[in-house]
């Protein structure tokens, strides 16, 4: 197949909304949404600040199966308020993960897939967003003991702020070329540290540091897939069936501290150095 023919056959995952993404990953006919938009569980805080709410608060919770395995999918809508986490959306995700862990304690092997398109805390709900993110973290670490929690950062928003820590807690991470993953947004870093440190308008520079390809080459994510519905679905299904990893990435402090000990911090770092530090042969 030529490249063009392949592209024509491809169905973009990135272009899908949160609900469509969840539907696309779940086995046909198994999608069942919890607290759907018609429940009108909207943000109690946005209208008070003159901001139009969305009926699902930007988070879709869907139960179903993937390859026959029971899962709950939590999908963030990146187009609503930059995918920011408010009280309701945050509680939807935390609560769903808590119930999935409870399922496992009752013998039901529910796993979770998180579709992460988010800038982190929704600043209009500041401390309630932050609190919800702490609870999402807690629930991931709990559920991860029983079943894999798979994070997907497809793009185009990427995954930042406290939710990048949630990504870091996932058993496995899947990214595309369109993904970016980092703690701090480029503008905030530039503002705090100066343009010499981080030029937020230099797009190639930003992508070379936080882009999906670099994260994969540095071993900070597990799979780098094409922006194609079938490809994302297959990778998620594959990882679900693989089960829990031998050791979670976030538990490997000894390895990371050892590697960080080798970084020369007298000069600035470049992407190639990160790749070889984390993936290269060690003495």
């Amino acid at each position, binding site marked *: 197949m030529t490249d063009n023919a392949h592209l024509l056959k491809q169905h973009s995952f990135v272009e899908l909304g949160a609900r469509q993404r969840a539907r696309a990953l779940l086995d046909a006919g198994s999608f069942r949404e919890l607290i759907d938009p018609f429940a009108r*569980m909207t943000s109690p805080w946005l209208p008070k600040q003159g901001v139009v709410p969305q009926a699902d608060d930007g988070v879709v919770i869907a139960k179903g199966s993937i390859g026959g395995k029971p899962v709950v999918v939590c999908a963030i809508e990146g187009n609503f308020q930059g995918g920011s986490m408010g009280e309701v959306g945050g509680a939807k995700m935390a609560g769903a993960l808590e119930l999935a862990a409870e399922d496992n304690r009752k013998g039901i092997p529910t796993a979770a897939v998180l579709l992460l398109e988010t800038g982190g805390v929704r600043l209009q709900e500041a401390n309630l967003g932050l609190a919800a993110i702490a609870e999402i973290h807690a629930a991931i670490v709990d559920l991860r003991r029983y079943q894999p929690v798979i994070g997907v950062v497809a793009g185009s928003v990427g995954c930042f702020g406290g939710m990048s820590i949630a990504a870091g807690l996932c058993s496995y991470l899947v990214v595309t070329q369109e993904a970016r993953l980092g703690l701090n947004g480029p503008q905030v870093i530039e503002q*705090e540290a100066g343009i010499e440190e981080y030029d937020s308008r230099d797009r190639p520079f930003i992508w070379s540091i936080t882009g999906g390809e670099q994260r994969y080459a540095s071993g*900070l994510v597990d799979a780098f897939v094409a922006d194609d519905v079938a490809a994302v679905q297959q990778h998620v299904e594959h990882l679900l069936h693989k089960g829990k990893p031998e050791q979670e990435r976030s538990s*490997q402090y000894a390895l990371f501290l050892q590697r960080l000990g080798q970084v020369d911090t007298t000069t600035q770092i470049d*992407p190639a150095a990160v790749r070889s530090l984390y993936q290269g042969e060690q003495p």
Partner: protein
Amino acid sequence: MSSYSTRGLKWFNALAANAVEVTGLPTSVKAADGTMGDQPARFLAVVADPDNRFPRARNGEVGLLEGWGLAHAVDTAIELDRQSENKRALIAIIDVPSQAYGRREEALGIHQALAGAVDAYARARLAGHPVIGLLVGKAMSGAFLAHGYQANRLIALRDPGVMVHAMGKASAARVTLRSVEELEKLAASIPPMAYDIDSYAGLGLLWETLSVSQIEEPSAADIRAVQECLTAAVKDAQAGGNDLSSRLGAPNRSASSKVRELLRAQW
């Protein structure tokens, strides 16, 4: 003269006065094993290290070394007590101005380092260690998520310098396209937007708030009062579950409970 807060270090030194320091950690991560009454405890703090190899983390920010260093300090406590019935309490002394902002930090995956700290604290709590967060200064955003926010119980000292927030005022104003004044006005009527500890307490996330006489240089009476409060928090955590459900229930956070009710009903 210093551009950084020393509260965290002072409270660490005060509470861990007779404790044995844990070695092998980055200079900016302090940990020591001691007791509170008959309860074994590991005290933990992130402190400023002006000579930090990572220049963007010299003022007490939580960066790469601090995230993974906390993970190390907490995980070794879990390992030491693996066979023990009486798990040592983990007392996170919180005075963290922010996460570290820098090129090295992003490039080397600071999000993963902070996940390392969260991972260890959450595992400790699930393993049965009472984890208590003591807020003595700033508890900002990612730094707080990494150091303290996984605690079973949170205690805040009542002081204008003790604040919890997702972003500093100037940055928050810029991102939400408001002036700092507008932001402050909004914060006065929207509790989750506020920076003061009483508004934060109104969200139901704190177990206790406590007044002390000299927060910068804790007096003997201050230390005693905080120790008593910590001991009570440990007992309460031991009596309760090892999840974070005790944070739910405040009227200003009713949607968080409502969502969980609906999810459970529809699950």
